[in-house]
C-alpha cells in the first residue's frame, strides 16, 4: 500500500470510508512525518495533540456511518487565520502570544467539514514577502533542492509554510491567503497546485488583514481535484465580511475531468517579459500545446496595462497595509514596549514589534496616503488599477481562461534576491495583475527545470468561474503528469 502521507485527499477519503485505515492512523502518520521534517520550520505552532483528539472523533463518526464531507484529513492552517484558543501570530513579534477568542469563518467551516489542523503554518510576516524569509519565527526551507547543490532554497511566499508542508507530505492540504501571489508563487516553487479564488469568494472574517481590497483565502494541495475539495469547504457567503459575495458555491470537484474541447485559452503577449527564465518560457509554450492537444482553442490576447501592475500594487498594498496595521498599538492585544508616554509607547511598540519589510511597507503606505501625495500616488494607482481590471474584461470577450507562467524563476536560495526590495518584488510580476483585478488564479505544477526544480503555470479565470479553472487545471495536470518528488523524500 502507498504510504499514507503520499495519498491524495481524494484517495484518503476513499480509504477511510472503506476502513482500510483509520483517521488516527492517517493523522499519526502525518505527525510522525512532521516530526522528522521539523528542520523545514513549516509550523509556528504545532497542534498535534488536538489533531489526535479530533482524529479519534472522526473515527467514531466513520464507525457510526456519520462521517463529515472531509472527515479526518490532516491539513496545515496558515498562521494568518485566527483560530480560537490557538496562538495566531501572522509570523510577527507584535502578535507573539496572541490567542484569538474567536475563529475565522474559513477555518471554522473547514473544521465543521471534519478537516484536522496539524498546526499553524509559517509565513512571511503579515503575509508581506515572496520567500518566507521575513517571518519573525525563522525561514521556511523548501523540501526541494537543486541537483548537486545542497543550499537551502526558499519555498516562496508568503504562504511558504503551507506550501512546503504539502510538498513535504506532512500535510495533505493547506490554507493560504493571496494578496499579490502568496498562494500561486509558493505553489510553483514547491511543485504543488494552489488556487486563489475570485475576490469575495471566501470570507476574510478572522483573517489578519494586510491589504483588504486584495486579500483572499485559498488552498494548496498536491492535485487540482484535492484543491477543489478544499475550496468547496472554504468558500461561501459570510455576512461578517461585507465584501463576501452571495453566490452559490458549486461542486468544484465535479468540474475536474470535464472536457475542455472548444475552451478558448488566451495567451497574453505582454507576459513575455524580459528577464524571464528561458526554461519557464519554454514550459509555457509546452503548456499551450498540452491544452491545444486536449481540444482547447488557443487565442492570443492583449493585456496592455500589465507592465504597470507591479507598480500599482506597490502603491495600493502598502497604502492599505499602513491603514490596517494601525491597529497594532500595544494597547488592546499583542506586544507592548513601554515608553514615557502614550505616543512613545506606540512608537516603541511598533518599532520593536514589526520587522523590516513590514515597517518599509507601512512607511511607504503612509507616504503615498499623506497630504499632498494622495492624489498623485494613491488615486493615480487606483485609476491604473481600473485599467488593469478593464484589460481582463476585454480579454474575456475573446477567451474563457488565460494561461501564463506563475513565477519568473524557479525557487532561489535563501539570501539570494535580497540586495534590494524591488528585486524581490519582481517575483510576483505574473501573479499581481490577476490580484489587482480580483480574478481567480490557479497554479499547476507542469515540469522540472534542468537543475531539478519544479516549474508551474498559472491559469486565470473569469470572476466566480473557478469551475473553468478546475476543468482546465485538471486537463493541464493530466497532460503534464508531474510526479517528481522533492529530494527530501526521494532518498
Amino acid at each position, binding site marked *: 500500500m502507498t504510504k499514507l502521507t503520499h495519498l491524495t485527499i481524494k484517495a484518503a477519503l476513499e480509504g477511510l470510508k472503506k476502513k482500510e485505515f483509520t483517521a488516527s492512523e492517517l493523522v499519526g502518520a502525518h505527525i510522525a512525518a512532521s516530526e522528522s521534517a521539523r528542520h523545514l520550520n513549516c509550523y509556528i505552532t504545532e497542534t498535534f495533540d488536538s489533531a489526535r483528539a479530533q482524529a479519534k472523533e472522526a473515527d467514531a463518526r466513520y464507525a457510526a456511518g456519520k462521517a463529515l464531507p472531509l472527515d479526518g484529513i490532516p491539513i496545515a492552517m496558515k498562521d494568518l487565520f485566527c483560530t480560537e484558543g490557538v496562538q495566531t501570530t501572522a509570523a510577527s513579534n507584535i502578535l507573539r502570544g*496572541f*490567542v484569538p*477568542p*474567536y475563529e475565522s469563518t474559513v477555518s471554522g467551516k473547514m473544521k465543521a467539514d471534519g478537516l484536522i489542523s496539524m498546526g499553524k503554518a509559517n509565513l512571511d510576516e503579515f503575509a508581506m514577502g515572496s520567500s518566507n524569509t521575513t517571518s519573525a519565527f525563522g525561514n521556511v526551507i523548501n523540501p526541494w533542492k537543486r541537483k548537486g547543490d545542497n543550499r537551502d532554497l526558499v519555498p516562496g511566499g508568503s504562504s511558504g509554510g503551507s506550501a512546503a508542508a504539502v510538498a513535504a507530505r506532512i500535510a495533505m492540504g493547506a490554507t493560504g491567503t493571496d494578496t499579490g501571489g502568496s498562494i500561486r508563487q509558493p505553489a510553483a516553487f514547491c511543485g504543488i497546485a494552489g488556487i486563489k479564488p475570485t*475576490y*469575495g469568494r471566501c470570507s476574510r472574517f478572522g483573517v489578519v488583514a494586510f491589504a483588504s*481590497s486584495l486579500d483572499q483565502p485559498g488552498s494548496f494541495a498536491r492535485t487540482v481535484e484535492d484543491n477543489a475539495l478544499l475550496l468547496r469547504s472554504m468558500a461561501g457567503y459570510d*455576512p461578517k465580511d*461585507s*465584501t463576501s*459575495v452571495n453566490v452559490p458555491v458549486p461542486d468544484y470537484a465535479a468540474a475536474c475531468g470535464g472536457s475542455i474541447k472548444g475552451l478558448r485559452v488566451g495567451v497574453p503577449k505582454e507576459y513575455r517579459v524580459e528577464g524571464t527564465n528561458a526554461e519557464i518560457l519554454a514550459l509555457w509554450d509546452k503548456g499551450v500545446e498540452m491544452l491545444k492537444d486536449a481540444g482547447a482553442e488557443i487565442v492570443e490576447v492583449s493585456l496592455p*496595462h500589465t507592465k*504597470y501592475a*507591479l*507598480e*500599482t500594487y*506597490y*502603491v495600493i498594498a502598502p497604502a492599505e497595509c*499602513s491603514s490596517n496595521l*494601525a491597529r497594532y498599538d500595544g*494597547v*488592546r492585544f*499583542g*506586544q*507592548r514596549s*513601554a515608553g*514615557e508616554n*502614550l505616543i512613545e*509607547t506606540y*512608537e*516603541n511598540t*511598533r518599532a520593536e514589534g514589526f520587522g523590516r519589510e513590514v*515597517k*518599509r511597507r*507601512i*512607511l*511607504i503606505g*503612509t*507616504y*503615498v496616503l*499623506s497630504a499632498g501625495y494622495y492624489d*498623485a*500616488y494613491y*488615486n*493615480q*494607482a*487606483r*485609476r*491604473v*488599477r*481600473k*485599467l488593469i*481590471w478593464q484589460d481582463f474584461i476585454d480579454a474575456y470577450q475573446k477567451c474563457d481562461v488565460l494561461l501564463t507562467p506563475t513565477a519568473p524563476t524557479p525557487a532561489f536560495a535563501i539570501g539570494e534576491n535580497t540586495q*534590494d*526590495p*524591488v528585486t524581490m*518584488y519582481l517575483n510576483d510580476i505574473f501573479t499581481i495583475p490577476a490580484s*489587482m483585478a*480580483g480574478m481567480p488564479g490557479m497554479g499547476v505544477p507542469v515540469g522540472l527545470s534542468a537543475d531539478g526544480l519544479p516549474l508551474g503555470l498559472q491559469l486565470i479565470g473569469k*470572476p466566480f468561474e473557478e469551475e473553468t479553472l478546475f476543468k482546465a487545471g485538471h486537463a493541464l495536470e493530466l497532460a503534464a503528469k508531474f510526479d517528481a518528488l522533492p529530494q527530501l523524500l526521494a532518498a
Partner: protein
Amino acid sequence: MSIDKDTVGKIARLARIRVSEEDKETLAGELSGILAMVEKLNAVDTKGVAPLTSVVQMKLPMRADVVTDGGIPEKILQNAPEHSAGFFVVPKVVE
C-alpha cells in the same frame, strides 16, 4: 522624487514607528527606490478614469443598526498587555 532623511522622520512619526538616525538613512534609500519604481505610473493617461474602489461589482450590503454581539468583556481583554477593572490600561495621557 526621492525621500530624504527628514521625510523619513516625518512619515515615521505619522506612522508611530520609532526609527533611529542610522535607520533613517537606510530607509531613505530603500523608500526612494520603491518610489522611483512606482513613479512609472505617472506616465499612464488616466484622464476620465474613475479610481477603482472595489473589484466586486456590487453595492455593499446594509444591515439593521442593532447590537448583534457583546457581553464578553473578559474575552475582549484577555489579550491586552495590561488591563484593570474591565479597562485597557495605557500610560497617563492627561496631566
